[in-house]
């Protein structure tokens, strides 16, 4: 995990009592909260509350994928999302990542078949997830 964070992110730790202004600035009302924020200070992903290790790591990489998507680095975003699906397949992050991988592919190619393929994929995996419902309009 430390390698992933050190390689891909600028880590900042903010204690609620020492940095109440940061809580206000980013609309944080509870801990633990972890945000992935772009270099303009715009929030890209939010993780609130405790999560088991794999769930947390999946969410962290999902957030990094969202940061890439926000920068229009579509190929990198898709790579991150697909990696979440494979490495953290048993977590809630996986279904969300599969959805956004499809979106990233579509944005990279402007080919709507990427969305249709994603909708089809949800018929095999994570079909009871909210992300399958969201993708169902594509297929």
């Amino acid at each position, binding site marked *: 995990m430390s390698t992933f964070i050190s390689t891909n992110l*600028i880590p900042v*730790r*903010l204690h609620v009592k020492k940095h109440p202004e940061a809580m206000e600035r980013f609309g944080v009302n509870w801990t633990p909260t972890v945000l*992935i924020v772009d270099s303009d200070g715009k929030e890209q992903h939010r993780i609130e509350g405790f999560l088991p290790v794999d769930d947390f790591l999946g969410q962290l990489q999902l957030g990094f994928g969202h940061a890439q998507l926000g920068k229009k680095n579509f190929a990198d975003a898709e790579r991150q999302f697909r990696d979440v699906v494979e490495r953290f397949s048993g977590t809630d992050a996986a279904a969300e990542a599969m959805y956004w991988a499809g979106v990233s592919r579509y944005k990279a190619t402007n080919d709507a078949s990427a969305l249709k393929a994603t909708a089809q994929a949800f018929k095999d995996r994570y079909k009871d997830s909210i992300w399958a419902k969201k993708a169902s309009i594509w297929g």
Partner: protein
Amino acid sequence: MHASLLEVAMATQVETAIQFNEDVDQALKESKKAGKPLLLDFTAAPM
């Protein structure tokens, strides 16, 4: 107790390997230079 990032780090025995900043604006400047997003870890755990 901040459970997510801190506990994961402790569980994987890498806490000391992560160098946390405490200044958001300085980190944002670093973020622009490095082309990396920020990870903001809000905690109530003793630091």
